């Protein structure tokens, strides 16, 4: 990989480089309190770009898989049916995407492009997306109390699947320099800019030291029992009582699936458009909802909430899918914890599985 050094002051200029190259640049900004969200960079907010801030709960997957997306436009004219696909091919760059989210995008690549069929809408979003990953090195700002990328091996610094990675070489994000690493040719192409200086061996060493330090700053959660959970789920060894308890605490809001960087389900709906015929939209959907599997005629194989919770964690953790997609559908971002009403996000469920299968085995 190619590495360079860029000063803290110059780092936001990467945004300008990208804008000059025709990208709409998205970056995280602060809202009220600790709220943050991804927003396009404009001249107005350009000055407020930060390297370190809490990762927004609304995930950046929306730039390759929007919450609502028009697939087709259909018009009837003179007895003829005109069916036209509509694509979004805007060039976008995300400046400040976290390593967990980079792994999430990679997982979506595997799912939407790497399985039986390729999704052209996804492909067009993805081909035009440039990722500037910021490694999480500021324990205060970057590492949330729900983060567990250490357990999913997706952070705090991604090893691949980004175009450019920025790694703050300062202590707790207060250093004067960042290391920029190119992950693709497109990323490397930016290095022609004068803001990038050569990196020395000492910089690499500094990066290594900081990374090791930062790893210790994560909350010691019990989600390091991931492998036990994967095995238990894959073998169908989890007692019904566990799913019952999880189902009892779930309020069926769908939040976990909407915020998950690696969740992919959607539904399709036709809507009349005034004066324009009909549009076919795809909108995010969630297996948490009971209508997700309901068939016309009333049969619903997952009517009960605990069956749906079982389904979610099977899809996330079963070994079959990890093998098939060469990627796990959980990136350790912790968002499902943040939005869950009943505290049945991934870490809690993994812990419950560990505890209950351990108890069983003690017999």
């Amino acid at each position, binding site marked *: 990989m190619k590495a360079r050094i860029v000063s803290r002051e110059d780092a936001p200029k990467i945004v300008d480089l990208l804008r000059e190259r025709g990208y709409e640049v998205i970056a995280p900004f602060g809202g009220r*309190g600790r709220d943050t969200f991804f*927003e396009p960079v404009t001249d107005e907010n350009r000055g407020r770009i930060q390297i370190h801030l809490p990762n927004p709960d609304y995930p950046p997957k929306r730039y390759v898989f929007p919450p609502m997306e028009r697939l087709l436009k259909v018009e009837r004219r003179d007895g003829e049916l005109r069916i036209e696909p509509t694509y979004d091919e805007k060039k976008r760059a995300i400046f400040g995407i976290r390593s967990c989210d980079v792994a999430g995008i990679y997982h979506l690549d595997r799912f939407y492009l790497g399985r039986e069929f390729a999704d052209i809408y996804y492909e067009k979003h993805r081909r035009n997306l440039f990722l500037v990953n910021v490694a999480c090195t500021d324990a205060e700002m970057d590492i949330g109390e729900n983060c567990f990328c250490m357990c999913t091996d997706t952070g705090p610094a991604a090893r691949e699947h980004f175009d450019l990675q920025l790694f703050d070489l300062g202590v707790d994000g207060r250093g004067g320099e960042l290391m920029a690493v190119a992950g693709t040719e497109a990323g490397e192409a930016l290095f022609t800019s004068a803001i990038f200086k050569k990196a020395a061996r000492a910089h690499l060493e500094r990066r290594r030291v900081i990374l090791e330090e930062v790893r210790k700053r994560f909350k010691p959660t019990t989600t390091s029992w991931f492998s036990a959970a994967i095995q238990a789920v894959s073998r169908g060894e989890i007692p019904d009582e566990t799913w019952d308890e999880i189902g009892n605490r779930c*309020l*069926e*809001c769908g939040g976990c699936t*909407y915020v998950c960087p690696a969740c992919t389900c959607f539904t399709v709906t036709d809507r009349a458009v005034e004066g324009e015929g009909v549009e076919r939209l795809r909108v995010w959907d969630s297996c948490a*909802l009971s209508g997700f599997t*309901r068939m016309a005629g009333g049969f619903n194989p997952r009517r009960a909430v605990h069956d749906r919770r079982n389904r979610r964690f099977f899809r996330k953790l079963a070994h079959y899918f990890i093998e098939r997609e060469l990627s796990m559908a959980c990136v350790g971002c912790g968002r499902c914890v943040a939005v869950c009403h009943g505290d049945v996000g991934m870490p809690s469920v993994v812990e419950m599985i560990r505890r209950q299968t351990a108890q069983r085995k003690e017999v």
Partner: protein
Amino acid sequence: MAHQLTTCTFCGVGCGLYLETAGNRIVGSYPSVSHPSNQGRICVRGWHVHEVASSPDRVKHPCVRKNGKLEEVSWDEALGFIAEKMKAIREEYGADALGFLNSPRCSNEESYLLQKFARAVIGTNNVHHGTGVYSNNSINVLLDMMGVAASTNSIAELGQSETIVVDGVDLGKRLPTIGGAVIRAKLKGARLIVVGTRRHRVAESADLFLQIKPGTEALLYGAMAKVIVDRGLMDLGFIKTRCRDYAEFLANIREYDLLRVAESCGVAASLIEAAALAYGGAKSATLMFSASMEERSRDSIRAVVNLALLSGNLGKPGAGLFALTEQNNLQGVCDLGMLPDRLPGYKPVTDESARAAMDALWKTRVPAQPGIGSRAMLGHRGQGKVKALWLSRYDPTNTALLGDVAGQLRQLDLLVVQHLFMTECSNYAHVVLPTTAFGEEEVTFTSTDRRIQLAGQVVEPPEGLTPGWEQIAELGRRMGADWKYGAARDVMEEIGQAVPFYSGADYENLARDYGRQWPCTKDRPLGTRYLFGEGDGGGEELPRNDAERPFKFVAVPKPAERAANPRAFPLTLVFGNSLYYWNQNVLVRHSETLKREYRQLMIDYPQGFVEINPEDAERAGIRDGKRMRLCAANATAAATARITPEVRSGTVFVPHFMREVGQQILGSSGDSFRLVPVRVEKEPA
């Protein structure tokens, strides 16, 4: 793309929500992490707010009925028509021939101006809201006993409660953010007590689940009070310094016998005792009940307040009473006077000095005679009493409680419907006025924990549409009122003058923070997290019965023990609301996912349903989806059975929308408080 913080307008929690827009379209919605009430969480409805925008069904132009058909006209013509008709009707029949009903989803600005229009311009107190039938009792009892008709504490404090009692309301489906807060509190060590006949989701997490027989709440709380008294767990300091009429209450409580009550309620005496100890012995305990979707008797609400007073659970964090308002602005709508017998701020219409204050502010003479409520206006149990009706975002044809509304609406001389879509009642309307929707206007709403919040404008409304409040103001001007409101914030300013506990809130400070919980006044510019705090007179702005001892016990006559059901009719029929209620909601109807979720019941049971417990069903040979017969002493009805373990064994639940069943069983008295003994049988093939 832009991101704007706003308030979700589905239920009474009022979650902080961000709307993401692209161009003139709302394209995404997600929670605010830092909002004190929801702290990063929203429910399935909040997650789908973005799907509603730009529905092709929106009404785009005002309409007036000509020759039997609604025709699009100009705003000038529509409002002119209304003004003329109203004047004529008032001239011929008097001001009380006109009535004004709004929805508990209407904004504060809409609600305030509508009741002001009725009182100051037309001259009638006939103003009410669609849920009045449910909330009247709560308002009256709370005002009587506490002086305040609202939840006393904040949603954000639930994590500090040692004990939480949830009475009757299915939090998981109705107010999920509160449901989540309650579950998480329990996971962190709080004792969760659930009381009610239905075993809903949150009940599954309860430490103590008192699945009582229907209608026995007052008995239960009386018995709990007795246990607290017997064990000396009452807060004597609080009672002596802040409460009146304790002696009568105490004498009355002594008549409760725990074992007899246990039998009447159908729950173990030990369970009642444990609940009483958990509630009475806690340093801070919360009790919540629904003030908006369940018909509760006054006595059952009195019993709840008595319990809170007895244990001193008012005036400290993590304690208190939540009179939950399930619709997003039921609190605001009542605060601002959409009540036939109360002015903005809850002062009675009959109170001369209160009227005088309004007269001075509005430069008019507010009528002294209280008005009639929604039931009377809509002709429940007889002839409708009004000739003209204004319906603001409210479609009574879908409110099953009110009998043959369509028939009544047809007889009106003037029906004005203000709404986003052509609802069923537009079929009878003389005028339809289309309004702006969520996100297209800047207005305020008040949550169930008194939080006045802004819901801002994030997109442009369709061409020609204006906010409902603006239309009412314009109409007022046409009828001679000297009203000058340039923007919604001007209405809020006047609200502050009319309602002392809103006086410190203005758009500027509401926009800066996460709203303001009232009382918000000059002396409390940041609002009030919980009422009646120590050293806190509670705010002089709140109506007071007795400045020194503001709380009052009310002895609830021990309910006569209900005779056990006759052998021939061993089950008890209960009437209530079902989630079908949400099917009329704008958001639900226009979001693909929500529509699918909420319609499942309707599609699975196209003829409607009546709910029965699996044990009872099995005993009678009744199968899910098949017809069953309900046999009461004097009546029979048939309906499709829905078998669910949520229903208490021994009860049969009839949703209000099953009108025929209601009419057949209850007959013309239509009193759905009645608990009817029945027998169930499967319908012969």
